[in-house]
């Protein structure tokens, strides 16, 4: 007898996207609804927490309704409700968590609280059909930069992380300094395409002997460079700055990943987090991994940024592992990876 199909409803509201999705058996995406707030926050130059929360409460139920309708699955047929409970903006998280708990309660369905970062890692199971633990994951987002070994579906070991600015944070801060619009990461990437990445030699902080990262020195170097030119009344070669800055960050990320791949002997590395959408990073890490006999897997663009598919996929493996939450589940804005 074949096993029963498992349908997970995923819900995500940790930052500026309200999202819901239905995923079958952890691999088949039946719906992926995302209501983005990027344009709402743009005039403020970044995400405004209270405005984000207001948008989430406006969109949460319509998005969930649409996800179920598009998947053509009734609530009654859902096996569990998975929701991001951290890390993220507390007020934003609370909207998704509250809706998810009430759905679970009203429909007598199991509730699964999911770590947003683990969700990003698990998006890769949809990209590499044959991907199985153990593998290495480079998590790069606005709040995180870390190298993580996924030992099995439910065990993660962090080997190193950022000591100051996350990679995505450095992207955003430099973008803002250069007067680029929010969100800054994609803007830097676009600008870098027209620049020379060898034009300016920015530092590549390697922290020898450690798997940790540090990007605040690099960020300051870029800001000082721009400031210096401005003081002299010289024009800032924005495209070259963007290209050279991006190249410096990517160099560090790739070299550190290579070292860990060699040390652990792992044959697969996956990219996770918002910055994983960066094409230059994908290309550099793919060839960097190949140099040390490993393979890079990264999510499709739509699954690189925040979405609920990844929450449903992570939820599926927690469901299989009987890891459920009770109705006291609360938002945890500073949830660490591997902590549940």
């Amino acid at each position: 007898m074949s096993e029963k199909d498992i349908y997970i409803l995923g819900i995500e509201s940790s930052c500026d996207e309200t999202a819901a999705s239905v995923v079958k058996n952890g691999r088949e995406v039946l719906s992926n609804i995302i209501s983005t707030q990027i344009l709402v926050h743009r005039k403020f130059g970044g995400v405004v927490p209270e405005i984000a929360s207001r948008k989430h409460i406006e969109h949460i139920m319509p998005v969930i309704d649409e996800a179920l309708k598009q998947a053509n699955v009734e609530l009654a047929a859902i096996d569990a409700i998975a929701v991001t409970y951290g890390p993220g903006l507390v007020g934003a998280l609370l909207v998704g968590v509250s809706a998810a708990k009430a759905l679970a309660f009203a429909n007598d369905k199991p509730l699964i609280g999911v770590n947003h970062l683990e969700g990003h890692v698990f998006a890769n199971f949809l990209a590499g059909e044959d991907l199985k633990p153990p593998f290495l994951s480079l998590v790069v987002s606005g709040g995180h930069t870390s190298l993580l070994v996924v030992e099995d579906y439910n065990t993660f070991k962090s080997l190193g992380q950022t000591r100051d600015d996350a990679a995505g944070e450095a992207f955003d801060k430099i973008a803002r300094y250069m007067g680029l619009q929010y969100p800054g990461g994609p803007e830097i990437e676009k600008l870098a395409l027209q620049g020379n990445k060898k034009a300016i030699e920015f530092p590549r902080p390697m922290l020898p002997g450690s798997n940790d990262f540090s990007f605040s020195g690099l960020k300051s170097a870029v800001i000082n460079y721009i400031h210096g030119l401005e003081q002299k009344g010289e024009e800032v070669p924005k495209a070259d700055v963007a290209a050279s800055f991006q190249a410096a960050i990517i160099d560090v990320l790739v070299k550190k990943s290579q070292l860990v791949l060699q040390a652990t002997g792992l044959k697969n590395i996956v990219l996770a987090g918002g910055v994983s959408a960066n094409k230059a990073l994908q290309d550099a890490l793919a060839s960097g991994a190949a140099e040390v006999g490993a393979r890079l897997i990264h999510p499709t663009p739509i699954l690189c940024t925040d979405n609920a598919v990844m929450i449903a996929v992570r939820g599926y493996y927690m469901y299989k592992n009987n890891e459920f939450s009770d109705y006291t589940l609360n938002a945890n804005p500073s949830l660490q990876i591997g902590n549940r």
Partner: protein
Amino acid sequence: MLTLGIDTATKVCAVALCRDGQPLAAYEINMGMTHSEGLVPQLEQLFTRTGINKRDIELMSVSIGPGSFTGLRIGLATAEAIAYSLQIPLVGVDTLKALAYNIPVEGVLLAPILDAQKGNYYLALYEWKQGKLYEVESVKVVTGGELGNILLAYMKPVVVLGEYAKITDSLPAGVTCAPKTVSMPKALSVAMLGMEEHLGKENKKYFGLEPFYIRRSEAEELWEQRQKNLAKSDE
């Protein structure tokens, strides 16, 4: 009509059930505990203890504001998800009106107030006439200092209720503070008032309500101020 009421607009976490005009059960906690952790467990216990099947609820009523922004969203997200799941209509009732509903007494002006932070208060005025509650003055944000004069201007006996504790001493003579037992939000009032307001209306909405914030976010206010200043400096 079996109605479930939820109020998380203030520090009080309140859930209650009523059927037609009959209060059935209420579970209210006023100990500063987080709504997010407590609300659904409280609902679960309400149904377990009463033996009422949650699938029999016919109407969902939620306190929609003014109040704590986060509290309002927790209550509304919960209410919407329940209404949606059970395919029952959802009504939002004004938090201040639900407070006035706690004291069904004619001949006095009821002045429910809620703390709007930084010395400000949400205030509205209500009056009962022939068993119905009417709004005399719609909600506004006033400072604690202004409150007394606003109330005196009506030349009527006034009863304040709600979050008046911080300004009790500054209230003028002739203004009475309601007993604490009827001063805090009650989910029974939310449920009964919600049912009254729902009756006779074509309401088939499961979601789509917005919290009654009254105030915009601070970021929006600052942004607008900056635009005004920029416009001025351009002149």
